[in-house]
């Protein structure tokens, strides 16, 4: 049971959250074309290491928070609210 640091509720067990993967992809403008939407929906960096991702605190404050988590070690470095930015980089 991982701990996800919710910026609003504090450290919470992962089963209070739903996962939604890569938070670095941005929904394109509606007229950006098929390729842009294809990249948004399908292609992924899928890094081995730090990964910025969406977690929804569905059983808590119902915010879609951004979490920077290491996919190799499962360590969590930072989190931010839905419209807030994560820190620039994590070593």
């Amino acid at each position, binding site marked *: 049971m991982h701990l996800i640091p919710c910026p609003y509720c504090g450290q919470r067990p*992962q089963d209070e959250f739903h996962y939604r*993967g*890569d938070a670095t992809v941005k929904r394109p403008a509606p007229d950006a074309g098929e390729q842009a939407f294809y990249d948004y929906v399908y*292609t*992924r960096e899928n890094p081995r290491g730090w990964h910025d991702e969406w977690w929804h605190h569905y059983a808590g404050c119902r915010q879609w928070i951004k979490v920077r988590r290491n996919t190799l070690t*499962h360590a969590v470095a930072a989190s931010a609210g839905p419209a807030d930015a994560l820190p620039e980089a994590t070593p």
Partner: protein
Amino acid sequence: MLARPEPIADRYSAWRLLTESLSSNRGWKPAWRKPEPKPAYDVIIVGGGGHGLATAHYLASVHGITNVAVVEKGPIGLGNAGRNTTIVRSNYGLPSNTRFYEWSLKLWEGLEQDLNYNVMMSQRGVLNLFHSDSQRDATARRGNSMRLQGVDAELLDREQVRAMAPFIAIDNPMFPIFGGLLQRRGGTARHDAVVWGFARAADRRGVDIIEHCEVTGIRREGGRVIGVETTRGFIGAKKVGVAVAGNTSRLATMAGLKLPVESHLLQAFVSEAIKPMIDSVVTFGAGHFYISQSDKGGLVFGGDLDGYNSYSQRGNLPLVEHLMGAAVSMIPSMSRLRVLRQWAGIMDMTMDSSPFICKTPIDGLYFNGGWCYGGFKATPGSGWCFAHTIANDAPHAFNADLTIERFRDGRMIDERGAGPNPWAQ
């Protein structure tokens, strides 16, 4: 389509087994050599798992291409090939999948003779249970699709399920069993033996299996691949095939490609060995749970993904709790059995839960991946189709639909309709 197996040195036979036992087993040779890499090969296969080794075997045995190296960052067969629940089946509903997996199953059926290695392929049957009328209809759609394509499938009712698997709680309060879809030709095989058998067979035909050789780059020249950088130096190649499962995205990045793939964690479990209890493979449509019993007697079982991107082979407790709950709900007599070990593998999940075996925009570079939960059963079929694709620079009909472009074109092969959400598949 299969080439006749060439006579291979050091064949296993009853006579050989007897004479060796009389001489204290001193005469057995290594199952595969430990060669130094040559400067260049016709084909390099990246990834010494089941798929990579099978590809090498079929390149050599079917296409006569023997100047082949399989490069593996560690010892062979310790990735997903050595960490699965050993299930073999072809009970898919969408024709693109059924075609491919059925060919794979056919190869399984002759694999021991082809490899001269007992991979303990055991067609004990795979039984998928369903728990409602609508699940029955969806399952029947799949079973009928299989039958229309000439694949064996039977629909069992409650009583037939009860007779076949008396240990199942038919009247589970939340998931009553309505019936099941049985594929008798499905079953299990001994996972490590598959790796070793392909390795030995490929090696005997001259394939170099190079362990502890990690690929660090894919060298290209003018839109064409010319070899791989490795921890043991550059190795030249006319063609490079990548079959690295959970590490697919990392290799793609080396080639400047970005794929519709995420790496996710899947756990599996084995109980202490007990006397025979579960004869076939049983999967439960509810609770996401599948189980079989190994020849050694352990109950081997698994369930869903852990649910987040991961390259760590460390399992987590929420899935354990859920899965054990499902186990006891479905098979109440499992409660007092002890789980002995758990392990985890990294699944290369695609955005529609189906794989790809295909060419890439780079000449001479081929990718084989996106196996999601289902890589083990695909092993011979994947190797065979990948070998065909590499040898001919064009896919076989069996894998023609298993492309990456299908996502761009909106031709997803999404058996469960889960959509582009790998964590939820």
